């Protein structure tokens, strides 16, 4: 057969097969749903025997929760970043279940951690800001309602030793975090792991023969955590701009960015003030902070190994939110719901199942405790929004709605919904909607809400239906124009 004729025959055959397939397949089956049908099969086949059942060790296993504040997922090596600044985290991932699409419930420390702690949506646990408005000029500190049970409450009540060693600020015990803990360190504002690890290790040494829950937290990557002078100077050597990379400057830039949200037009224009070199410098400072955090984490994990605790503990590493670098006109976090703030680190190391297991499905950060409790067969608080991801780990079907909220400093009221690669951001104050397709537009630069009204509608209705459930009345927010409250 001549090569030409062969090609012609193949083309005809391919087309006939295609036409045949289009005719045969169920007419209402979306083409892209075939992917969903295939992926569980793949997941199951790579996971044979991985049952993640530790219920028989429920009375001896410890739980260690490590929170790396303000760590963006895409700054780690977890997503295949060639220039990873997190070798220790990446190494630990090879022994862990890694959730590659974990979404924070809120884009800043306090509500995000409280969602992890309680398994509830921010608007349900109600700790959405450090202060609560009693009247126009009266603010009181917020604290978790005593009526809301947290997952650590259950462990404490179950007789576990509980210790928290944190960088303070948004995770201060007064918000409801350290309830009935044997130890809770929160006396510094924005301290790093360098501050919280030593007392944590001391406490571990003292309690290693008890069943314990340890919460370790540090602000090492946070804008309000100062980078060591020597390291800062090294970064400045390659930079000719005016920025100093310090925390006061970071706070000022953050406020300028937020002002642009409240009073567009009058506010100092960050976009104009910062050029590419400036942003590169700030990101360089951020990367160096993350590198330091990772080093400290590595040291701590090594200690756990030396103490023999890795085989006796479930170790969970999360970040509570990311950080923005002018992707959407601002610096820092809290004021928007874009991926740079919501895409977080979430991994779990289960003794006996300590090998890398990648999960690509979207999950919510507050699924952490329900999953750990489920794996151990423990009873946690009822009626929570978080769900166990154990079915997902076992290759079974699992789907749960992915939403995020920000009522940051009482002046933005944003909600976001994810479904597959589509993401809707809804501004409750003016009803403005933005839709993004993260598969082709991961940086959320191209709003496709008018090009894809159906998905916009579906996600908005899912979001509004969920707000009904969480008793959020969207109309309470319409037309609100408040000045940001000053908290820092």
């Amino acid at each position: 057969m001549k090569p030409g004729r062969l090609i012609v025959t193949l083309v005809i055959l391919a087309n006939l097969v295609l036409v045949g397939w289009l005719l045969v397949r169920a007419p209402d089956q979306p083409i892209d749903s075939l992917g969903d049908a295939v992926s569980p099969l793949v997941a199951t086949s790579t996971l044979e025997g991985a049952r993640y059942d530790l219920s028989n060790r429920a009375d001896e296993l410890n739980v260690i929760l490590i929170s790396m504040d303000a760590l963006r997922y895409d700054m780690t090596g977890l997503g295949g970043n060639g220039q990873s600044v997190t070798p220790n985290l990446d190494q630990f991932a090879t022994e862990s279940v890694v959730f590659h699409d974990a979404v924070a419930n809120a884009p800043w420390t306090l509500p995000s951690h409280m969602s992890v702690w309680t398994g509830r949506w921010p608007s349900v646990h109600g700790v959405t800001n450090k202060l609560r408005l009693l009247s126009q000029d009266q603010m009181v500190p917020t604290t978790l309602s005593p009526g809301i049970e947290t997952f650590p409450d259950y462990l404490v009540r179950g007789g576990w030793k509980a210790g928290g060693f944190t960088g303070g600020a948004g995770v201060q015990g007064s918000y409801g975090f350290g309830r009935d803990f044997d130890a809770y360190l929160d006396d510094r504002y924005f301290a790093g792991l360098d501050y919280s690890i030593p007392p944590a290790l001391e406490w571990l040494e003292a309690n290693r023969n008890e069943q314990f829950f340890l919460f370790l937290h540090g602000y090492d990557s946070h804008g309000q955590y100062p980078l060591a002078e020597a390291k800062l100077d090294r970064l400045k050597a390659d930079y000719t701009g005016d920025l100093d990379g310090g925390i006061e400057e970071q706070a000022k830039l953050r406020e300028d960015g937020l002002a642009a949200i409240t009073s567009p037009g009058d506010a100092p224009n960050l976009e104009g003030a910062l050029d590419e070199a400036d942003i590169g410098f700030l990101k360089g400072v951020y990367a160096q902070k993350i590198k330091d955090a990772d080093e400290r984490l590595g040291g701590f994990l090594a200690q756990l190994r030396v103490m023999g605790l890795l085989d006796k503990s479930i170790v969970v590493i999360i970040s509570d939110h990311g950080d923005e670098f002018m992707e959407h006109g601002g610096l820092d976090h809290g004021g928007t719901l874009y991926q740079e703030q919501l895409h977080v680190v979430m991994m779990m190391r289960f003794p006996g199942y300590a090998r890398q297991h990648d999960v690509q499905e979207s999950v919510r950060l507050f699924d952490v405790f329900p999953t750990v409790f489920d794996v151990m067969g423990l009873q946690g608080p009822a009626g929570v929004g978080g769900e166990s991801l154990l079915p997902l780990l076992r290759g079974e079907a699992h789907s749960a709605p992915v939403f995020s909220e920000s009522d940051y400093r009482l002046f933005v009221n944003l909600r976001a919904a994810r479904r597959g690669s589509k993401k809707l951001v809804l501004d409750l104050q003016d009803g403005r909607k933005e839709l993004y397709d993260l598969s082709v537009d991961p940086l959320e630069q191209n709003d496709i809400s008018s090009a894809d009204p159906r998905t916009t509608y579906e996600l908005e209705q899912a979001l509004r239906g969920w707000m009904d459930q969480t008793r959020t009345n969207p109309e309470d927010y319409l037309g609100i124009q408040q000045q940001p409250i000053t908290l820092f």
Partner: protein
Amino acid sequence: MRNEARSTPRRAGVRVVVLVTLLLGALGVLFGMSQRTLAGQPNIILISLDTVRADRLGLYGAQRSPTPNLDRFAEEAVVFENAYSVIGETMFSHASLFTSRYPSELSTMDYRFSLPPDVPNLPQVLGLYGYETSAVTAGGHLSDLFGFEQGFDHFESPRHWASFYDVLPPTMQWLDSRAGRDPFFLLLHSYDAHARYMKPSPYGFAFANPEYRGTGFFIAERNAGVTRTLEGRFFPKTGLPELLDWDEPRLLGPANKARLALRANDPDEESRRVTRHDVDFVRGVYDGALFYADMMFGVTMAELDRRGLLENSIIIVLSDHGEELGERGLFNHRFSLNDAVLKVPLLVRMPEGAHGGRRISEWVSLLDIMPTLLELVGAELPAGTRGKSFVAALEGGSIEGHEALFSENVFRMMSIKHRRGRLTFSGVGGDSPFAADLLASARIDGPAFELAEGLDESSAELLRAELEAWRRGLPSSPRTQREVSDELRSVLQEQGYWGPM
């Protein structure tokens, strides 16, 4: 031709085959993509017959049926024997039908009402799922004056307060001229059974005595307002427009209550005695109007059949509300929340008449239409909708109907219908003699303003609690509010809905 084809060189033939298959493949891909959710989707034709009270139809057990066409249609349709509206007025009822929400959740409960743009409505959502949407309405309360055009690709009201006679030709014209191959959603609406009832011969007197002369004429030929009787007398002048000050923000605010009191105590108020013969005549003329509406419905079905649309369309026939026909001294449909006004016909004919003749006795609501249709086309249901889908009933299965049905009206009345009975709360103040009398004639006792039909005390207590809980779940202020335009005012005056200002 055959010979020519044979003589064509083989290579060219191969090329043609290649081209054709390539084309087929490309078309297949395109078709497959565009029809992803549309393939096999039926058309949806919603026929809303204004003011048709269920129990006057043969298919719902009436002795001398004025509706032979609807009765025949019922044999090919799933018939809901207990379908209820949430309010007795055209515009509010349709607004609820299209949004699956209670009227007071949507907008101001008077003529400043407008369908809010931010609440997803049925045509809008169907449009998102590939439906071409068209409405030919009889205008008036179901027109673009109240925002009903929202979500429709094509919206037409040939004239205000129109008949099927006006609506049918443009409907068929639209059907014949549409080029698209998408499934369509079509809304058809007519006021044929709405007051004024009297229809041309032979329909007008088909069920009424043509020799009759009396008060019934006045009643049958009145429209709008509170056409009602008091203590066996009919007050021709006490229509709503004459009684109410429309500029007052609330329909029954202090000024309006004073007017009501004044009117009721006016010794010069002309009144006429109303006897059973008068009421019978009104009912007869109303049946005549149904007879006419039914004839036009028959014509519509024939026209749809002629276009081959019965095989691939879901046809829903319903009414937005019923009509009081002399029970408790009431006429018209605005001033009460009884079954006469709220119980409506609801028939759903599936493509090719599948499951035709099924009778569903569970309680359903017009609020259920939107969830049902959206489930049928695989569309996401909007948040905040109040109805529940009865798709299972259309597919041969069973459904669980509503335990309780709630309704409300512009007079701030609200009502619960429950297995134990109906309980109605009236917002009408007790300080007006007219209002008090009105409530008395409706068997509403004293200052409690509650009507408990055959309810014992504990049941009344339960229903009162449920009614209050329902009310608390509704927003305290309407979503949208707007000014009444001159155009709207004149359209309303034309039909007697607005007194001379």
